[in-house]
């Protein structure tokens, strides 16, 4: 007898390969995972987001104003998607997250340019996601020198000017210092919650099947919905504890502002926890082994981190990636959490995201109930 036998190693190796080949899901994971990751990193992540939705409030309809807006648009960083009539309306659009930027061209603008007063154009940026706004803001630097060049030639003030005809003032709203932690920490709440909750419930039911206790459970009068609710309820508590820990740390360690919006935040957290749990339950009805459940949970986490706006700005992603991102609860949850903590969004502001989460919960639990088999067939 030798202590190391290559033959035995080969035997084991061959057996492992056979087992691996039979584990079709692992197989798929091995192949699909790198491809998906490559695609996501290669195409979906665009760290200088362009075509960010922008609202304008033009208080003076003039050639100059039109030229400036055209120049803003030409930077390719801004898409002028909405025109506000009042400052309040503009502010509203920004707070609701409908636009990333709000541009105000003040009244009396042309006259003051011609007088050489250097009037100001106000650009307000929603900096709750600073990575999204950074590129666009720097693109504004060249604006004053170039935007009115053509309009001003021929005018006496335009000839041989050394000073720029107007000023662009950028206001970073909601996260004035553009502190990344303000953006990342609330995002982490979503990622940590879904990672642990999806995985824990995913494993919970699969474990029953693997250990044989499912046979016992199914022979009792317990109903599928009872099983689901009974299994998930404890994890709601787990989720709430995790939430409290993260929020306390966010405040204590990172000094993340808590602007309010508690109603929306509370409802959002609840829906998100329930959504993650039902998804875990759905996974457990699909997976045959705990390993498969782990892999599925992992597979779900990848787009949740990459496509939700957690790390990379949502608006920087191509449309197909945004479409995938919109189907992921983390995306909506992040909007709710950031909106509440950084902007103090009201319940009404958070409504679209809350609805998206609610729809997710309903669809996923319906699927889970359909999939949950009451027999061992």
């Amino acid at each position: 007898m030798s202590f190391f036998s290559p033959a035995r190693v080969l035997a084991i190796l061959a057996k492992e390969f056979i087992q691996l080949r039979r584990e079709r899901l692992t197989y798929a994971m091995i192949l699909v995972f790198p491809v998906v990751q490559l695609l996501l990193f290669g195409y979906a992540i665009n760290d200088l987001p362009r075509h960010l939705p922008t609202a304008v409030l033009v208080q003076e309809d003039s050639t100059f104003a039109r030229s400036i807006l055209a120049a803003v648009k030409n930077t390719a960083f801004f898409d002028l998607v909405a025109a506000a009539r009042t400052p309040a309306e503009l502010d509203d659009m920004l707070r609701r997250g409908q636009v990333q930027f709000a541009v105000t061209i003040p009244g009396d603008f042309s006259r003051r340019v011609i007088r050489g007063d250097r009037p100001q154009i106000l650009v307000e940026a929603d900096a709750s996601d600073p990575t999204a706004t950074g590129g666009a803001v720097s693109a504004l630097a060249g604006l004053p020198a170039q935007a009115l060049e053509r309009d001003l030639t021929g005018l006496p003030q335009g000839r041989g000017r050394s000073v720029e005809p107007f000023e662009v003032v950028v206001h970073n709203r909601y996260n004035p210092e553009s502190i990344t932690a303000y953006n990342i920490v609330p995002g982490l709440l979503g990622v940590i919650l879904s990672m642990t909750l999806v995985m824990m419930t995913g494993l919970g039911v699969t474990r029953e099947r693997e250990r044989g206790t499912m046979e016992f459970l199914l022979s009792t009068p317990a109903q599928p919905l009872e099983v689901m609710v009974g299994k998930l309820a404890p994890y709601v508590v787990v989720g709430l504890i995790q939430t409290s820990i993260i929020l306390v740390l966010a405040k204590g360690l990172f000094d993340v502002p808590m602007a309010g919006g508690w109603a929306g935040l509370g409802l959002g957290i609840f829906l998100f926890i329930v959504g993650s749990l039902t998804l875990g339950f759905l996974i457990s009805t699909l997976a045959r082994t705990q390993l498969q459940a782990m892999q599925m949970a992992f597979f779900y986490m990848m787009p949740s981190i990459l496509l939700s706006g957690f790390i990379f700005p949502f608006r920087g992603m191509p449309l197909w990636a945004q479409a995938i991102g919109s189907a992921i609860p983390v995306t909506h949850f992040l909007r709710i959490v950031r909106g509440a903590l950084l902007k103090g969004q009201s319940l009404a502001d958070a409504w679209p995201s809350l609805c998206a989460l609610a729809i997710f919960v309903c669809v996923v639990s319906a699927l889970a109930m359909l999939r949950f088999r009451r027999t061992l067939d």
Partner: protein
Amino acid sequence: MTLAIDVAGLSKSFGGRRVVEDFAIQLETGRICGFLGPNGAGKTTTLRMLCGLLTPDSGHGTCLGFDIGAQADEIKRRTGYMTQRFSLYEDLTIEENLTFIARVYGLDRRGERVGEALKALGLEARRRQLAGALSGGWKQRLALAGATLHEPKLLLLDEPTAGVDPRARRTFWDEIHALSRKGLTVLVSTHYMDEAERCHEIAYIAAGRLLARGTADEVVEKAHLATFRGEGAGVDRLSPELAGKPGVESVAAFGPTLHVSGPDPAALEAAIAPYRRAPFVWTKVSPSLEDVFIHLMGRVEEGSAPGAGAGR
């Protein structure tokens, strides 16, 4: 008498392979029926179909008067099913497991019932021990206590005494008989012949088909099997020689004696004729249940029509 189990035509396939085929059984209330058959015969599958854990591909019938398809919930509520593999929670304590069962069946006087069950089991002192830490035999006994906690009308037991010591097995069977006197119906699968003999009646299944049905004596009688018992010093050494002879279907040593069986008494007689010499003594005996089962098993393997041995 009413029928506690009345099913017919039950079939089940897994991945295209017939595992149970055209299975029919009727069992009167209050009877104990032993369910026997070789490994892989389809016993577990049949028990699962009876309590709604598997959907039969075809067939119909009732358990406790409820349809096995449409009223599985009603059946589950009134049936205690003990799985072949321990299926209570190993990471719960003994008491927690019983309490869970009491809850899930919505029993009243939960604490009392659990306490009684623990006392009957003799596990009061170890109530806080994890079920997973119990020895195999104790797990079986806990599982049985779990299956009877909600006072079911029908007990489906899948090899309940596998790995249980003789004294505990006797206690177990005394308990089963006591329950049956109170009107409980029991269908119990087992591989032990002595247990088969303690049942009111038996059902023998092989390769998914019911081959024999009736009391132990009836099954032996209907098998039309001839058996000779050989005695005398060294008789057991004849076994390899005899096994190959025409007319001999099975040869089995029982301690110092040898059982030689075959379907045709004349051929069997001829086969042992050369060995009718001192010190051997041959007597024609009535075959044991085991002889009969081995005989039935052999016929299925040969692929001969299994219908002949069945009936009731």
